[in-house]
């Protein structure tokens, strides 16, 4: 695929920022409103797939390599699992913490003043402990994972130029 017409590219340029902002909003507000890392990541990956369809896989591969997307996906996975292991680690470091694997160690404590409040309404984003951080990690993982699937499949089965 080597891109579609000028009309499609223009409409894609107009619609792309709104899709990205909506997807990132769903990821960032995963602990407050419906949605989360998986759903917002799917929305953002849909916007990137729209770019891929409109501009063609050859143009997109010139901009971003699938190895870099694999690194991003692995970073998301490592962030997720390390946040899960921090629950065990902090129990050994500080005896005041009580936690296990995947325990929410940031909620309701005064040592680390980030995301430590208990949810009191839909406007407070600094609530819910490690859940927003896990949403960011899973969102990064889903964005990179779904986009690298679409990108590799589109680029590998592309129509040869001049035939």
């Amino acid at each position: 695929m080597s891109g579609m017409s000028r009309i499609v590219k223009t409409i894609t340029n107009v619609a792309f920022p709104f899709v990205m902002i909506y997807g990132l909003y769903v990821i960032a507000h995963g602990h407050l409103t419906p949605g989360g890392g998986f759903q917002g990541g799917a929305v953002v990956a849909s916007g990137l797939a729209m770019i891929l369809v409109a501009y063609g896989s050859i143009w997109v591969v010139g901009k971003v390599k699938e190895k870099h997307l694999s690194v991003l996906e692995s970073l998301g996975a490592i962030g997720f699992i390390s946040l899960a292991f921090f629950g065990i680690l902090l129990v050994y470091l500080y005896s005041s913490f009580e936690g296990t694997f995947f325990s929410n160690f940031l909620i309701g404590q005064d040592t680390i003043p980030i995301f430590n409040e208990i949810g009191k309404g839909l406007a407070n984003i600094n609530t819910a402990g490690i859940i927003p951080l896990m949403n960011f990690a899973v969102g990064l993982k889903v964005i990179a994972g779904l986009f690298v699937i679409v990108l590799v499949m589109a680029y590998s089965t592309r129509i040869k130029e001049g035939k």
Partner: protein
Amino acid sequence: MSGRNFAAIIFFAIVAVFLVFSALMMHPFGEFDEEHYPEMDQYIIDNTQNETGADNGVTGVVFDYRGFDTLGEATVLFTAVAGVIILFRRLKK
């Protein structure tokens, strides 16, 4: 009618019978059932906001109470990406 179609029709009939029976046995929506009282549901509805701090109860369950399940989903996605990259790598020059 070939044997393949016959087998498909028999399989479809069995699945349809199971679907109809399970639809008839379904818990009525919104009614309080004393016999099958969902204790876990009520616990999560009452305590999610205080224990996980999240206003969204679904995210509180997915990322806190059942975080291990989410780890499995992430592993499934990782495996899918690795499989697609391995499968399509040979086609590229």
